């Protein structure tokens, strides 16, 4: 205690007074609970659609023989880098995941990532355009994006669980919230920073706003937008691992279990596997961006 004994009234100076504290947290809890109760039908429907589509992706990935998937990765690795050993390296890395007994866990993780990225792109792209086109939308959405990006990612897990209980669905929601941010940001950034004269030219030759957007601004912003896609994938990768905490199956859950049992080796292999998938996703999408830029020159 900092304050000397017997001077209890000084408490209110050295520590924040009890009487001025309020508990907004429990009110928020109640609100979310109430919302989830009132909209059970809708939430249930969303849940079943989302789970069905993730299962669909999962089924599709699982129905590809493992060696075919490796060959596909080798091929695309070669296509984007133009070097056969790069493709082979990716193939060996994929093989390592399978050899570690983590193939099906990898498929689980990748399915959620793909679903989350797809949703982030579908929602994030038009939102980004809106932010770029309207000052008012920018003033509303930008602070929300800042909040979403600086908030520790664990915090998203709670409302996701309250709305959708545990499992893949809240994982998907939390991942989308986390990974949509770069998509919105980069799309709006790309569109707003199209060369001023190019934008003026579009208007000066009599484009409507829509024509200028579709024929000039979006194509000109494409390299930046593609960088947003790449970042969205990376963010989804990292969040999907955290989502093991709310029971999402996949590599993250393996790590979590091994950590709880203090089994170093068992935590290490899925950890490496996540790094491998992240590297392959990153290089393949970045390769696509670069190829596009080269093609434009």
């Amino acid at each position, binding site marked *: 205690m900092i304050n000397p004994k017997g001077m209890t009234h000084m408490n209110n100076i050295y520590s924040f007074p009890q009487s001025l504290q309020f508990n907004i947290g429990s009110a928020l809890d109640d609100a979310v609970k109430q919302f989830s109760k009132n909209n059970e039908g809708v939430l249930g429907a969303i849940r079943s659609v989302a789970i069905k589509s993730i299962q669909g992706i999962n089924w599709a990935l699982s129905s590809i023989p493992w060696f075919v998937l490796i060959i596909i990765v080798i091929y695309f690795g070669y296509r984007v880098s133009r070097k056969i050993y790069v493709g082979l390296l990716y193939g060996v890395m994929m093989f390592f995941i399978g050899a570690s007994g983590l193939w099906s866990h990898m498929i689980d993780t990748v399915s959620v990532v793909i679903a989350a990225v797809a949703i982030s792109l579908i929602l994030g792209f038009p939102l980004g355009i809106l932010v770029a086109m309207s000052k008012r939308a920018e003033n509303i959405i930008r602070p929300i994006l800042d909040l979403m990006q600086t908030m520790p990612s664990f915090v998203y897990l709670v409302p996701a669980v309250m709305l959708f209980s545990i499992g893949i669905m809240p994982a998907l929601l939390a991942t989308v919230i986390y990974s949509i941010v770069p998509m919105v940001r980069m799309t709006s950034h790309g569109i707003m920073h199209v060369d001023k*004269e*190019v934008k003026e*030219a579009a208007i000066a030759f009599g484009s409507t706003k829509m024509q200028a957007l579709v024929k000039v601004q979006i194509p000109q912003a494409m390299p930046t937008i593609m960088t947003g896609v790449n970042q969205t994938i990376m963010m989804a990768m990292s969040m999907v691992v955290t989502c093991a905490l709310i029971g999402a199956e996949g590599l993250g859950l393996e790590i979590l279990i091994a950590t709880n049992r203090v089994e170093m080796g068992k935590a290490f292999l899925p950890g490496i596997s996540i790094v491998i998938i992240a590297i392959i996703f990153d290089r393949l999408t970045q390769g696509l961006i670069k190829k596009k830029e080269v093609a434009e020159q």
Partner: protein
Amino acid sequence: MNDNIIEVKNISKLYGINKKEASRMMKEGSNKDDVYKKTGVTVALWDVSFEVKKGEIFVIIGLSGSGKSTLVRCFNQLLKPTSGDIIFEGKNIETFNKSELLEYRRNKISMVFQNFGLMSHRNVMDNVAYGLEVKGTAKDERQKRALEMTRLVGLEGWEHKSIESLSGGMKQRVGLARALASNPEVLLMDEPFSALDPLVRRDMHFELLSIQRKLGKTVIFITHDINEAFKLGDKVAIMKDGKIVQIDTPENMSTNPVDDYVKKFIDSADKTKVLSVKNIMITPSCLVRENDSPKNAIREMQQNSVSTAYAVDSRMVYKGIVSIDDALRAGKENLKLFDVINKDVMTTSEDTLLSEILPMAAEAKYPIAVLNGGGVLKGIVTKTSVLSSLAEREEQPVQGKSDVT
């Protein structure tokens, strides 16, 4: 019916919150700096009025910040003036509604930009056809027209190339073709050639003039280069601080400048006061070392078929001139080359203005050696190159900016 295609009536453009107060101050005759200090309002244009005749090249010239780029953007409503009217073929464009404005931009007026404003994701032809595409011209027709235009500006065979693969001059040809494709009445050109190097700029002037004569378009041309203005303009308007100082034909303007500002501007067109020695110097064709043998020096001169050589030491420091006669004499009399170097010749420095070396060049027997601060030989200036640079004054635009000095 008068033959004015555009009439500009009392256009002003102010940026800032307190425009009313700023207008009042301007009306009372304050200058734009005072207005900015007092009200925070930037006066980009103030009470600009003039007429442009159909088919003429109307040049607007001014330094950066004089409001010329703002003015040109008012003609196609990229910027809306704070007050005043622009009348195009008898119609006030300030009162156009959305669809009238689109119609006007699509068919009547087009623009060429300083940094080209080309769309890098489209190839040459699709850039040229852009204006036709947005107004809904059928694909066959717009391709035919785009081909025709690329040919007109001399880019035949480049239709399917990407924009990045073009040089600066070619890019601006694409810009010009794009502007002509919709067959507009008026061409706005916002410093279209100032990003190009002088030789390319000269070609583009020629190109523009020949196209203009062929098609008879009205051109509103913005520049900061008085040489360019006088070369292209049927009429020239000089702007300063958002106002027009003088509008006249180039001839009248150079004989009767209204004030010192205009006079200074016109004086800067004189090349000898802008160009320095380094712009016209050339590398000497024959160099000899001061301790070479006379025989070597003679051979060197014969190989280059010249009668004088420039003598330097091992660090390229200039020592003087050796004529072939002196070298022969040295060979006969068994002298060293060092002994016959003629040290008594004129030299100059790289940054000397042409006007300063003019008298020297007229008298010089040999080309003048150009030395840097350390006496190192950088090049030579011949009498002919000095004189011909004067003769070319009308033809070759000054390197870089010929702003008022």
